[in-house]
């Protein structure tokens, strides 16, 4: 790539094609396909066989003689993972959900050949009396604002020309030909962008510190794509859906801080993201958007992938760098900070995937534009991976300051099966719970810290009345104990002791003093552990103790688990009034603990019962309770 003009030529030649999907008034381009079939190729939809659907589309289009007129495109995540596999047909923008391979023939013969949208397969929320409404008007998307995810589900991530058509590499060209490194840093600083990996440090400041460090022996930029928080998958979705946005942003960052080499440290558990990112790097190299003398300037930049190997602690910045260097991923004390001594003791800039995903937009639209989104101290948007007990599981991007209620009730569609919302967990093993009483909280970095949770990388797990908060705290501690690297004592030994106490409590052997012991241990670990993993490990326990202390007390004093989860504290019984005496429970009981006469109430023998819960699931009259 020698010049911006060359980039412009590619953009213009592709624009009509991609516009068909973006602009609802677009007319079909003179050359190229008249209709586009977008099939989600994110991990969620791929898991529900979207590749087979793509193959079937290609087969059916060929049989119907439409192969030339209709283009099939595999995109990144649309966000509505609960409804996968997802297929969208343009120019109509018809959103087909939960598509099966058998449905493809009908979509081709009816919709694509004759222009009749197949109503029965449409996402029901998009169906109106007089046709279909745009996907972006349904509850799930209405309150979202897509900045980091703007190209996910729109372009083909394996085709660099489609990325260029949506203004890709424009920001890099602008930076290299019109701006000094200092000006770039000033824009990022002014935008108020904060690190999306969780801690929320000012991105511009980080860039400035790295730029100022002595780079005479080399300097690096790195991308943290080691998304280890269970339940968080936004970084993966960005890499799968828009890998070039990360490459472009890293090149901009390298120019700003004075680096010439970059590394993306990515989880090996994300094979699709690894593959697409590698394809994107190869394409960018081939076009001269990576390599020497980019856009004919003196700026050169090379980018390499490094695969993680399944260690959560490697998401911590110093551990990540130790791992790239080829060692056990153990953290090291800070200072010195990576901005001064990072990879191989040289100054290194490390940002998270989602942070990078915002950069090109800030450069193209300006800091002022970015500042119009969000709250006073948290600018822009945040992507959350919505999971757990919620109807619309998937990926959502919301302006900072959106309330939890809007996320759960409107975007998320509420709790399934008529259950009650109990809490939302953010920040994974480092975060905490937001109880139902705080559902109207406006979510940003500072509000979450205030209530004892944290933004974290963006996992948002919804819990209902059937979730035991003590059990959840134990689950997260098991995770930290397992993932503690063992380097410092507070984390290695302290979290283990906390887990033992929690284990005791869930087995009915706890006492009230245990709660004080938990808090005391938590305080010591928080103030003495070496890295972020240890310092935040007690948070799930502290926050559940803060908001659900009554549940802990029920476990230690009454020896009961109110949610009916902790097996040792639960006993199953049959409510005689509701039991019709059908005997289904007795037939299904694996240990023969249920007995009785047909047509009169059955009973469970607690001495034999193994508390597996099968009977409860099978009873047609909901006559079995576990309290």
């Amino acid at each position, binding site marked *: 790539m020698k010049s911006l003009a060359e980039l412009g030529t590619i953009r213009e030649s592709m624009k009509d094609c991609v516009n068909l999907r973006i602009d609802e008034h677009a007319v079909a381009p003179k050359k190229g396909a008249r209709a586009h079939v977008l099939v989600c190729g994110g991990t969620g939809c791929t898991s529900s066989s979207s590749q087979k659907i793509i193959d079937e589309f290609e087969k059916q289009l060929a049989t119907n003689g439409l192969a030339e007129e209709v283009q099939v495109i595999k995109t990144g995540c649309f966000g509505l993972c609960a409804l996968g596999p997802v297929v969208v047909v343009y120019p109509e923008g018809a959103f087909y959900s939960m598509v099966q391979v058998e449905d493809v023939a009908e979509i081709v013969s009816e919709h694509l050949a004759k222009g009749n949208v197949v109503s029965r397969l449409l996402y029901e929320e998009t169906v109106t009396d007089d046709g279909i409404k745009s996907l972006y008007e349904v509850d799930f998307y209405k309150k979202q604002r897509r900045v980091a995810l703007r190209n996910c589900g729109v372009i083909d991530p394996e085709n660099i020309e489609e990325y260029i058509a949506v203004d890709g590499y424009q920001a890099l060209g602008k930076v290299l030909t019109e701006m000094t490194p200092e000006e770039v840093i000033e824009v990022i600083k002014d935008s108020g962008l904060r690190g999306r990996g969780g801690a929320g440090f000012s991105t511009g400041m980080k860039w400035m510190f790295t730029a100022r460090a002595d780079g005479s022996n080399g300097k690096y930029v790195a991308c943290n794509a080691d998304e280890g928080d269970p339940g968080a998958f936004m970084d993966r979705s960005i890499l799968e859906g828009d890998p070039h946005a990360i490459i472009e942003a890293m090149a901009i960052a390298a120019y700003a801080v004075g680096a010439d080499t970059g590394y993306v440290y990515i989880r090996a558990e994300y094979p699709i993201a690894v593959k697409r990112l590698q394809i994107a790097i190869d394409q960018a190299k081939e076009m001269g958007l990576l390599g020497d003398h980019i856009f004919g300037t003196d700026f050169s930049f090379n980018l390499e992938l490094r695969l993680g*190997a399944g260690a959560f602690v490697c998401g911590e910045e110093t551990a990540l760098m130790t791992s790239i260097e080829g060692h056990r991923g153990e953290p090291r004390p800070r200072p010195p900070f990576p901005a001064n001594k990072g990879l191989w003791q040289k100054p290194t800039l490390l940002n998270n995937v989602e942070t990078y995903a915002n950069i090109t937009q800030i450069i193209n639209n300006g800091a002022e534009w970015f500042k119009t989104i969000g709250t006073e101290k948290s600018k822009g948007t945040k992507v959350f991976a919505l999971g757990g007990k919620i109807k619309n599981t998937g990926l959502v991007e919301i302006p900072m300051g959106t309330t939890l209620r809007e996320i759960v009730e409107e975007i998320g569609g509420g709790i399934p099966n008529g259950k009650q919302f109990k809490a939302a967990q953010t920040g994974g093993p480092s975060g905490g719970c937001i109880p139902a009483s705080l559902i109207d909280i406006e979510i940003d970095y500072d509000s979450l810290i205030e209530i004892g949770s944290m933004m974290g990388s963006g996992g948002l797990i919804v819990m209902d009345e059937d979730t035991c908060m003590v059990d959840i705290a134990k689950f997260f501690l098991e995770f930290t104990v397992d993932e503690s690297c063992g380097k410092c004592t507070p984390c290695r030994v302290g979290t283990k002791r906390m887990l033992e106490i929690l284990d005791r409590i869930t087995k009915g052997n706890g006492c009230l003093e245990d709660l004080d012991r938990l808090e005391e241990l938590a305080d010591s670990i928080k103030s003495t552990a070496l890295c972020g993993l240890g310092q935040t490990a007690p948070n799930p326990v502290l926050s559940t103790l803060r908001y659900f202390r009554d549940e802990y007390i029920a476990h230690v004093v009454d020896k009961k688990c109110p949610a009916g989860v902790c097996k040792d504290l639960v006993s199953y019984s049959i409510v005689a009034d509701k039991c019709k005496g059908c005997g289904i429970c007795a037939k299904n009981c694996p240990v023969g603990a249920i007995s009785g006469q047909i047509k009169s109430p059955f009973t469970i023998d607690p001495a034999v019962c193994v508390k597996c819960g099968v009977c409860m699931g099978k009873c047609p009259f909901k006559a079995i309770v576990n309290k």
Partner: protein
Amino acid sequence: MSEKTVIAFHETAEQAAALQKVIENHKGQDGALIPVLHEAQEIYGYLPIEVQQKISEGLGVTMAEIYGVVTFYTQFSTQPKGEFKIGVCLGTACYVKGSGDILEKIKEKLGIDVNECTPDGKFSIDATRCIGACGLAPVMTINDDVYGRLVPEDIEGILAKYM
């Protein structure tokens, strides 16, 4: 649960040549060890001590360092895996939706524990971290096949497909 079976190390000439090539490709690179271990595990399916020794000699890295790295990262295994690798996701979203019960059911059906392999070398079980298919929770994988929205009753039928 079953006794741990020790499977002796065997390698083919192709495997040895492939590893040699990997070592040559990476030799002298900064931070070469982890990429080499990834590729070696692709070739052999696991990283027995014999393979670690070859890498040690090839890259000039001490055995202590290599063993330390291999045992630090959960993706590296010193035990062979089954022909069909079962992974049960224990990420938060799956856990909240009952993946613990799914794992119990698989353990019960196969008679082996997590990180073990059936004596016939057919199945092995891993409890995996979040694989990011949270929309389909609870999720399990068997090699490249993904099964989502599971209930314990599904397990028998799914395993039968691979028997």
